[in-house]
């Protein structure tokens, strides 16, 4: 890992190729960063300053990204004693991910919810989950009559169940709300957060009609033995305190052809996931052949998440 460590000469060499204004801004930050970094004695001491001066994900060169990932990996090693690998799988051309969920089959066991937490390294204490499973009254689609804190054996005779997670909206109000572009929709439709760019204003959380965003009010805690070492920079890497996070359709898995963790955990086969642009994909088949409905469709956010019956 050491060969990947900060090398300011190398970084500046890369900068030469970038636009002039951008280069000078970068340079300004680098000089500041370098000045403070050299004052520190070790890599670990330098890290807070490099975190502080880190630029927006979209402004980073591949080389800078490699260095940042190495730094983040080293931080986890320091803090937890766990070797993790941070990768950055890119969206695939011709792929637009979508989810379909069978309300008739879901039994409300919440396995998706817990599998998600494990896969995505979300905080165990305080407990932070991306998926909310609603216990719904039969005879109503009104989520306001739902219960999220149900206990005991499921399913019951009086209820059906509706898991809700980020709907990866086409017209995402969270993306528009963010004052610093720390959250955006990737070309494959997945709405991501740059955890190092988020300033923690929580306007996106207020804007979301699906209660899909989660804020780290406290330092997230995950036991070292429970850390999933296969991490995506824009998805399940360990988050700092004070930033927003959310479901990313497990992009570190799905962009490599795997299924999301919630789908794999589902014992009833209620969850279908795939490429909306592929006419033969399961999710496309569901939309074309089943009765589909969209939660809070009146909010006008055009989600890539569909509920269906059958």
């Amino acid at each position, binding site marked *: 890992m050491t060969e990947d460590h900060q090398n300011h000469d190398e970084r500046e060499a890369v900068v030469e190729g970038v636009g002039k204004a951008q280069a000078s801004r970068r340079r300004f*930050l680098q000089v500041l960063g370098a000045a403070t970094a050299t004052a520190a004695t070790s890599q670990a001491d330098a890290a807070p300053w490099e975190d502080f001066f880190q630029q927006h994900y979209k402004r980073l060169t591949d080389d800078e990204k490699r260095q940042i990932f190495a730094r983040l990996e080293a931080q986890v090693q320091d803090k937890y004693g766990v070797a993790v690998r941070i990768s950055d799988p890119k969206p695939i051309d011709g792929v637009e991910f979508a989810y379909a969920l069978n309300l008739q089959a879901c039994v409300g066991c919440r396995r998706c919810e817990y599998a998600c937490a494990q896969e995505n390294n979300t905080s165990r204490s305080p407990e932070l989950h991306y998926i909310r499973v609603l216990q719904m009254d039969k005879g109503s689609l009104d989520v306001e009559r739902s219960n999220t804190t149900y206990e005991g054996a499921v399913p019951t005779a009086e209820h059906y169940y509706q898991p809700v997670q980020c709907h990866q909206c086409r017209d995402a109000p969270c993306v*528009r*709300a963010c004052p610093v572009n720390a959250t955006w929709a990737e070309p494959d439709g997945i709405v991501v957060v740059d955890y190092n760019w*988020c300033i*923690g*204003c929580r306007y996106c959380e207020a804007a979301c009609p699906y*209660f899909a965003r989660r804020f780290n*009010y406290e330092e997230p805690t995950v036991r070292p033995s429970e850390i999933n070492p296969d991490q995506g920079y824009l998805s399940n890497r360990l988050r700092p305190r*004070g930033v927003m996070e959310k479901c990313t359709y497990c992009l570190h898995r799905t962009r490599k052809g795997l299924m999301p963790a919630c789908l794999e955990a589902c014992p009833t086969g209620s969850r279908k996931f795939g490429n909306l642009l592929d006419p033969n994909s399961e999710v496309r088949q569901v939309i074309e052949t089943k009765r589909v409905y969209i939660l*809070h469709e009146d909010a006008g956010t055009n989600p890539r998440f569909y509920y269906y019956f059958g």
Partner: protein
Amino acid sequence: MRDGYAFVRASLGAVMHGSSAYYRWLAFLGVWMLLGCAAATYQFANGLGVSNLTDQVPWGVYIANFSFLVGLAAASVLVVIPAYVYRDAALYDISLLGELLAVAAMVMSLLFIVVDLGHPELFWHLVPSLGILNFPQSMLAWDVVVINGYLFINAYVVSYLLFSKYRGRVPDKRWYMPVLLLGVVWAVGIHTIPAFLYASLGGRPFWHSAVLAPRFLASAFVSGPSLLIIVLTVVRDQMHFPVRDEALQRLRQIVGVAAVLNLFLTVSEIFVEIYPGTSHSASMRYILVGLHGHNLLVPYIWTGIALSVFAAVVFLARPLYSRPKLLLAACAGAVIGVWIEKGMGLVIPGFIPTSLGEIVEYSPSFIEFCVSAGIWAIGAFLYTLMLKVAVPIELGTLRLPGVSHERVGLHPLRGAA
């Protein structure tokens, strides 16, 4: 340049010397400021987990105060318009005090945004070029622009006017009128953009209302001038600043009309929500009567409504408003009433129930209370110091050595130039 240096020195001199009541007031505010700083430091070190905020209710007392304070800045535009556009002599005399109130209000609203951030140290991400300001897409980015802009506009105008008068010169209209008039237009933004911040969220039915921006304007026109009436009374008694009764009565007329308009808009909103009883009325039911047994804020909002009604009645009935003490009580009631209604009364119900129907209630934690009180103390402290400089300059007692102590610009615009 040398005059500028003398101005700064004279200002520092003015704020350093005062009556014992002045020192006691500053000491009182100082204690709250210290407490607030300690609480803010604790929050910064430990994260927003020390607040009572949750994913269900992610905004609380900080954003509530922010929403109220942008309205308070209306104290500026509502004296500037009558004074400069309609050439009202009584309000012209005190217009500077209104603009200074706007400066203090803007500083406080910015501070309330900063303490609400998970990473206040990363504020540089908002600076265009260095960071990224998502303008014009994000309404919060608009807010950053309009608040900083309004702070700058008011700070520039009052600095220029005070500096001119300090040098015994009649302020040159060319140097301040364009900015002052820009401030009048900008004031529309300062009251509507924060409303749009909420109203633009289609997933929050409680805020998603066309009448929210007019309500913000109306309530701002109540709280700003009401507080100014209180301030003017104190300044007249304590600092011997000649405030004409006409000025107070003109402001009273303004808040009287605005208070009635504000109540009317509030009633319209309540009616439209409650009468048809759609599922979108849940938040309104929560705040007015409680929802499924959750009613933490019900007494709170009714206190606010009662104070607003009381204030409106006093503002409009001559036998009542002609009694100075009652007028002051009504002003205090109006300010607190709007603070309740445009503060937590607006912010919290927007999140209850959540978009998935959960009900999680909120009240501020001790730390949030201390930080909020500290920011209010900073605002009051700042405003006091600014008055301490502005009042003697307006009176003509604080002047550049060798300059006549005559009062400058104490007449409507027509005669000023």
